[in-house]
């Protein structure tokens, strides 16, 4: 097991390096003047200087491989330039926006995984019965409903007509409570901070604002996971060892839970990395629609205002997170399935 993890860890720098290279290639589509922006850390630097001097200073007319080396060096120093869309440096912007997105992601992952796996295996057990057909239709609709359509329709019905779930991350009153001296911000995640401060008013208000975005964000991934779990479970249920388990008189519940479901978990786990990538895409749309000031909305605004430093950093951030997530998935995969370790 340890040697497997080490082998996988050795691959990590190669893939991360590849991601950096790819982002760099994308950058080459821009003129040196546009690329200067990646190196500027505040608008003040542009005063009293000629842009040609800056291009020269940062060596943007040098050969591509020299520039690449220099760019990698700045990345490892954590310098990503100034984001026009956020009006602060990219590093600062990440620090500010990540807790908002993390809160959304945290609440979305749980319904996706639990809902997808439990309902998927339930559909397989009731293959071609009413429950299976209903789940199939719900999943296909979920898969077909674009995130932005689901979000806008959700706002239309639950905010416009019913006024149950408002957009934004927190209401005005709760936000005033949060700014008061007694409320201590531990993590930046409102729901967790509210629990730690034992403040149920803020907690409930935050939950009320979470319902729609979490639903919109998780629905697509949930549908995908459900279908994969169903296929996998159907396949496992036809295996000989399931028949053996039944014929030796085990209860159906034990057969399903212990023998079938555990083995069926492997394919859904493989796509878990993909699900995370999907969530990032969904996050851009969801945060834009529900006016959550997180990483996704920042990236969307960066795209609209041609804020390249922010976009490149965002791409790199997403890339590295997905690489790490895939690594964790692979390790869990090896834990579940001994055959993987031996390859």
């Amino acid at each position, binding site marked *: 097991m340890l040697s497997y993890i080490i082998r996988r860890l050795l691959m990590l720098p190669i893939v991360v390096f*590849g991601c950096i290279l790819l982002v760099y290639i994308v950058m080459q589509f821009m003129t040196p003047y546009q690329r200067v922006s990646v190196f500027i850390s505040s608008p003040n630097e542009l005063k009293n200087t000629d842009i040609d001097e800056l291009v020269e200073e940062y060596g943007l007319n040098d050969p591509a491989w020299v520039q690449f080396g220099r760019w990698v060096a700045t990345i490892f120093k954590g310098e990503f330039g100034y984001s026009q869309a956020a009006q602060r440096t990219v590093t600062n912007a990440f620090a500010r926006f990540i807790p908002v997105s993390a809160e959304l992601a945290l609440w979305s992952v749980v319904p996706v995984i639990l809902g997808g796996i439990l309902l998927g295996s339930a559909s397989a057990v009731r293959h071609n019965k009413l429950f299976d057909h209903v789940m199939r239709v719900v999943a296909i609709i979920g898969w077909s409903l674009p995130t932005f359509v689901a979000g806008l329709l959700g706002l239309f019905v639950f905010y*416009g007509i019913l006024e149950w779930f408002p957009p934004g991350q927190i209401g005005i009153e709760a936000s005033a409570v949060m700014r008061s001296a007694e409320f201590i911000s531990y993590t930046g995640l409102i729901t967790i901070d509210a629990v730690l401060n034992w403040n149920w008013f803020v907690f409930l208000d935050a939950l009320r604002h979470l319902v729609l975005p979490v639903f919109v964000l998780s629905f697509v991934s949930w549908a995908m996971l459900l279908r994969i779990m169903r296929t996998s479970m159907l*396949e496992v249920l036809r295996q000989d060892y399931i028949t053996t388990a039944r014929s030796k008189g085990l209860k159906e519940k034990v057969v399903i839970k212990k023998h079938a479901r555990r083995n069926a978990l492997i394919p859904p786990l493989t796509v878990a990395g993909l699900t995370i990538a999907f969530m990032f895409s969904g996050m851009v*749309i969801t945060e834009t629609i529900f006016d959550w000031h997180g990483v996704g909305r920042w990236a969307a605004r960066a795209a609209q205002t041609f804020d390249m430093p922010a976009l490149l950093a965002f791409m790199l951030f997403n890339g590295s997170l997905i690489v790490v997530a895939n690594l964790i998935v692979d390790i869990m995969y090896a834990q579940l399935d001994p055959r993987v370790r031996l390859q």
Partner: protein
Amino acid sequence: MKKKRFVTLRKFIRNPLGVIGMLILIFFIVIAALAPTLAPPQWENEPYRIPRSGFSPTPKPPDEEHPFGTTEGQYDIYYGIIWGTRTAWTVSLIVVGVSAAIGLVIGSVSAFYGGIVDEVIMRITDIFYAFPFLVGAMVITTILGRGLDKVMYALIALGWMGYARLIRSDIIRIRELEYVQAARAAGAGGLRILVRHIIPNAIWPVVVQASMNMGSIVITAAALSFLGVGANMGYADWGQLISYGRNYIIGLSGNPLAYWYVVIYPSIAITLFCLSWNLVGDAMRDILDPRLRGTQ
């Protein structure tokens, strides 16, 4: 071969959801084909430009001249939906066709040569996979600039990897089957075996995947328009229409339904399009997936 195809067709007809999907697709084909009759263009050379009556930002409800009403900027919603159908077909067919072809070639090369070539190609697909589809496409279209052609380049650049992996794993699996070894024993060359014997049998999962992706490509293209980095302003595109209607979703105080038409009509169009492709793809997968054969 011919007989087998009929069996597949008969199985397909027995799947009611698949048939419904197919009917909706035919409906969309008819709309795309009849677009010039259903919504005569105002400018002969630029049929994809949505005509607008005035420049007022406030949407106007449906009337005789504008059957679905007008959206922000007085763009005609009906016209945008009819010609947007053509846009959806163009984008999905070109993007899925080209990226599946690229994936097919890369995946086959990877599986055929194996060894170090395979390893390098698979690591490259890993790297491309590390970027979320929409986010990567957003970055590329921001750099290339607005326009539907650029959206298609971005989607193709980030869309081929799934097909490559799929065809690769299938070729590797089929390569070991007895009939391939028989062909090899009969003296067939490597390339001939790949093209004549392996790929025709390995291609079905790719076809299913492609049909499932037709809908999601349209969704992503529309999402880019929605974010303001997709099609040009005023171009007949469903995502664009939704983006115009976005600010009017909440309606007026006291009358939340005041502007219902600005988002509902384009939402129905795009959701139906994707739904029908997914229904067809799902039915095809149940028929063609060898792992599920025999589960009735």
